[in-house]
């Protein structure tokens, strides 16, 4: 488990996937030799919140204490994560597809994968819009209890099943790698998909296990 006495740079060295998360949390610059407590103080961040996020991303079994993650900060973080997907992850995936298609414009696998990805991304963007327009504002707005619970149930339903789709895509690409394809590009695409899949799983886990219970408590109040 990551504690406030751990050096932030060591934490990142052990798990490089945490670097974009630390960047989203505003802690990636000049971490030097400082431990997490010192970095948080220097950047005026709540150390319990930062530890809650880092540990949740590091271990699928970890659940932060309810008070560790303040709701408003959590929603700001999730919104930043959405922006990261829109501006970084999704364009990166399409970049690989475009490069592969330039080399093999008539390859059926690429045409089908692109169509599949288009549909997946469309659903993902709709889901992001739904969260940002209907779920996140629940913290501030005074909506009727019925409206809140309908939206929360819908959020929970949307998370189930979506997570298998990227895993299936990888499986199918691996089984149908065309002859004479640029293997470096396929390799990069598969790595990007794996990273994207993990981000999606972590994000859904964050919302199902942490955000939704917190919103339900808020509604009960």
């Amino acid at each position, binding site marked *: 488990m990551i504690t406030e006495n751990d050096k932030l740079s060591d934490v990142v060295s052990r798990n490089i996937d945490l670097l974009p998360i630390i960047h989203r949390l505003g802690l990636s610059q000049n971490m030097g030799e400082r431990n997490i407590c010192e970095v948080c103080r220097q950047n005026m961040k709540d150390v319990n919140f930062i530890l809650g996020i880092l540990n949740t991303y590091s271990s699928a079994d970890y659940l932060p204490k309810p008070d560790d993650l303040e709701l408003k900060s959590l929603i700001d973080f999730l919104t930043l994560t959405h922006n990261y997907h829109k501006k970084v992850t999704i364009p990166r995936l399409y970049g690989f597809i475009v490069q592969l298609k330039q080399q093999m414009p008539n390859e059926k696998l690429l*045409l089908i994968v692109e169509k599949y990805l288009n549909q*997946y991304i469309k659903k993902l963007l709709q889901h992001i819009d739904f969260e940002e327009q209907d779920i996140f504002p629940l913290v501030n707005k005074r909506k009727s209890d019925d409206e809140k619970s309908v939206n929360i149930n819908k959020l929970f339903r949307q998370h189930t099943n979506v997570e*298998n*789709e990227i895993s*299936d895509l990888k499986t199918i690409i691996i089984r149908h790698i065309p002859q004479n394809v640029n293997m470096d590009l396929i390799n990069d695409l598969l790595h990007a998909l794996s990273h994207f899949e993990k981000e999606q799983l972590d994000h859904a886990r964050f919302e199902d296990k942490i955000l939704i219970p917190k919103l339900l408590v808020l509604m009960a109040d």
Partner: protein
Amino acid sequence: MQNGVSVIIHKSSIIQQGLKNILLSHNIGISEIMNTFPVCAVLNNWKNVLLLIDNQYVSEFKKHRKALKKNGNILIGVSISAVFNEFDSFFDEIIFINDGPDSIINKINYYFSDVSDTKTDNQLSIREIEILTMVAMGYSNKIIADKLFISIHTVITHRKNITFKLGIKSISGLTLYAALNNMVDFH
């Protein structure tokens, strides 16, 4: 599976006779008819046989299910109820008291026509390809069951087998697989 060899095990003589008439009228042979659940020595002799078993024998049947399946037998429950009960899932298929002759024959024929090409572990059978194509075309389990004259329970079993064989879990993934393998038009 030996094409068209079946055994009927049912307490009711009326049901035995009814099943016998329906099977014979469709040229499905019957090797034995019994009114009690047989002993081990008899069960172990059956290989690649279609067994039509009174579902009230579920507790006796459960103990031998694994061995019967290992010998390539197809296990069809015969229910005097009109609805599925929780124990019916031990069977490969269920014939209900209100099923008409066509429905019974469809359920049985499926196994006679299909089992022979399900032997290879990860190859989809003709029936599974048919169902996968319909899933990729967006049909629900209910519509697939109606179109193929099989129960929803059977459709669900096929879908589980398809997912297991292909290692693909989502409907989108199955559709992608179907498109790549020319089962549906990807446009």
